């Protein structure tokens, strides 16, 4: 089963890997300590950080035009996602309510037997 975002197999032309970024509380250390005497006295907790899932991979195509089609499909999700969508790693793990917030290519396009480019795409959970 292909990995998908918003029902589209954005990543499956090439190898890609999913990983979950930092989870837990967002904390700040105030200039003036408050709540002296408590276990976490020096830190203020602002709530859970938004869940972020990063996909690192490589878009692979037989031609330059095919590669542009895939790159455009990726960036179209950046602007077209008026509503959050489901991210599916294709191996049984599904994250609902995710936004594609960043797509970044890691290098120039590589031309060998194939046309390819390495990328990183960051998805964030809405409302968490």
């Amino acid at each position, binding site marked *: 089963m292909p990995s998908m975002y918003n029902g589209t197999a954005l990543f499956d032309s090439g*190898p*890609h*890997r*999913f990983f979950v970024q930092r989870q837990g509380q967002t904390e700040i250390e105030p200039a003036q300590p408050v709540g002296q005497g408590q276990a976490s006295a020096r830190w203020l907790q602002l709530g859970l950080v938004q869940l972020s899932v990063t996909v690192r991979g490589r878009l*692979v195509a037989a031609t330059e035009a095919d590669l542009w089609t895939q790159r455009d499909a990726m960036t179209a999700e950046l602007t077209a996602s008026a509503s959050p969508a489901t991210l599916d790693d294709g191996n049984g793990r599904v994250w609902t309510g995710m936004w594609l917030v960043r797509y970044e290519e890691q290098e120039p396009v*590589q031309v*060998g*037997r*194939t046309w*390819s480019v390495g990328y990183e795409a960051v998805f964030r959970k809405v409302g968490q």
Partner: protein
Amino acid sequence: MLVLNPQTVSLLGQTIEHVRRISVHRTPERLLLEWGNLGPYPIFADVPEQRVEIELVADLDRGSLDGPSPGDEGTLSFFTSPTAGSGGRTKVEASVVVTTVNDGVEPGGSAQRRIKMAALSSSGTSDPISVINAEDGAR
């Protein structure tokens, strides 16, 4: 590619005599090797940057003082044929830049010159080595 005793070797417009062999080495300059989520083995490989190096080995005459220098640019061409006739005769040609010139004495006692060259592509997409049918006797 390895060609022993090639015929009519020309480098930078000069004929080179007594060429023992010409070898072509193709090596990756950048290797892409990638893994997926599901296992330990790579699932994608490609070589988007590669170098083509040519090495020419020729016997030296006594007192050979001239020859190419590193940085010199031009054409290397030679012919190869499976027989003494022109059947199956091919011409090999490449645009090259000389990178190394070494003169020395081999263990057998013969003086030899080794010239290493980087082969260049005209466009970046075409193979730097051209192999042309020369059965018509073309030179």
